[in-house]
């Protein structure tokens, strides 16, 4: 693998919070390699000076404080206590 070694793929999986099986490592590794080979064509292009970067503008509005019931946002959490989401321990 040129573009994405097995090591890099495992690091990527960790970044993505995924744990790949051996079969997935093999299959995804090959497929990623094909895709990254294709993407290599991006290297053919040099944007003209001064034209780097996509144009976009930020759209802002004033903060508005509203009354809202947090239950609506959290009630589908698998484990809930009041409006607090329960998760497994974070620190050893």
């Amino acid at each position, binding site marked *: 693998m040129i573009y994405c070694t097995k090591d*890099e793929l495992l690091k*990527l999986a960790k*970044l*993505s919070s*995924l744990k790949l099986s051996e079969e997935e490592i093999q299959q*995804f590794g090959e*497929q990623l390699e094909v895709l990254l080979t294709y993407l290599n064509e*991006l290297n053919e292009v040099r944007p003209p000076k001064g034209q780097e970067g996509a144009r976009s503008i930020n759209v802002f509005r004033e903060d508005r404080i509203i009354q809202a019931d947090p239950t609506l946002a959290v009630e589908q959490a698998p484990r809930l206590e009041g409006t607090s989401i329960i998760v497994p321990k974070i620190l050893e």
Partner: protein
Amino acid sequence: MKSFLTIEQLQDLLEKKEISVTEIVAFYQERLRRYNKKLNAALEIFDDIPLATSNKKGLLQGIPGLVKDNLCQKGRITSAGSKMLAQYKAPYDATVVKRLYDEGSIILGRANMDEFAMGSSGEFSAYGPTLNPWDLTCTPGGSSSGSAAAVAAGLVPWAIGTETGGSVRGPASFCGLVGLYPTYGLIPRFGVIAFASSTDQVGPLTRTVYDAALVTSVLAGSDSKDATSLPEPKRDYTRKLTGKLPTGLKIGILQDVMQAEGMNEEVRTAFGHAVDELVRMGASVKYITLPNLKYGISVYFVLSRAEAASNLARFDGSLYGSCAAEVQTLEEMYIKTRQEFFGNEVKRRILLGNYVLSAKYHDAYYQKAQNLRAMIRAEFEAAFEDVDLLVSPTSPALPFKLGEEINDPLTMYLADYFTVPNCITGLPALSLPCGFSKEGLPIGFQFMGPRLSEELIFQVAYAYEQSTNHHINIPVGFD
């Protein structure tokens, strides 16, 4: 009542009181129940339709349809075609869903789709693929697979899809329908489960251009809940459907089209006939070259995967219902949940997204793609100084056979070659039928226009449609 009526025809019957709303709803519910097993177009057919809404006056009063399952419908499961959201009930309606209800329409169910809208065939749905009504061994295209199949089989007169790289126009082309990718920001995204936020848009799928224009009139317009929504007022997009081309219409054919390798010859021929017809109707045509168009797929790959990796980071087992069992630590919860409940295509895209965003590769891929995006957009804008609209086939291929491309991601992605340029530049395009293959498979072509040119696109498309008869054809086996 006959099957395969358009919205326009149904409204005519309603106005003449030849039929009631209750009868229309019952008719389509029955058709959905009868044929859905065959097609797997709907993930759920609602059995608790509040018929009170059907008396609401509005542009779509009494006309039922389906909504793609990545659009939040309050109180309904909204799964985005994924096991990750198998039990997730949307706490609110998407803006477009609310607008559909406010204009008197009735939503009959949730349409099947590729998982998190990631796919071009419907085969990546966690709930089984949808089949193409024109040929049950073929895919209807994706990711709005269920929406397209349902309309094509006459199970509903309209359906809503979403598009990120081709997911409305591709299925429209494969199913002989009309499908719109609107100007980015014209139709609000509030309540749409995000895949790639800078290209995701909602679009209608209908049998005719008039119907698509009508549904667009319902969906479009500014929304304070969507910061990317344009400050556009509500408009009647059916206003200019005169049946005639505007005088002096100049159409550009993308030069790349004629030279594209791997284009199916029947698609090329049907497209050629469509161009001939436009000329016969009074348009002038010329070839336009967009030198960086060929990088469209790569630009789209990179940007959409990067955004997907970011958008899907929220699915970690803590909030949306699905969570892996027996997890000891937080990290385990994240990893096991995502491993168990995401499908392979989703995982592939997240991995590629994180690859192009990682520090080592960010400039080479992500930044480069952003640069190219701006360059391609500038090329389109320059082209539109010269011509009014551009045309191309919608897909270089005929509908694929089920299972054909699923292990060859690159080939499937290349099918989006003609649709991704609009998505990455945020410019509107409409796909409509231009013919059929020898084996009866639909072929679509598209009009692309400058920003906010939907009225012109609808006008031209309508004129073309009325002078041909592709839209009158129906698939066999859905009487």
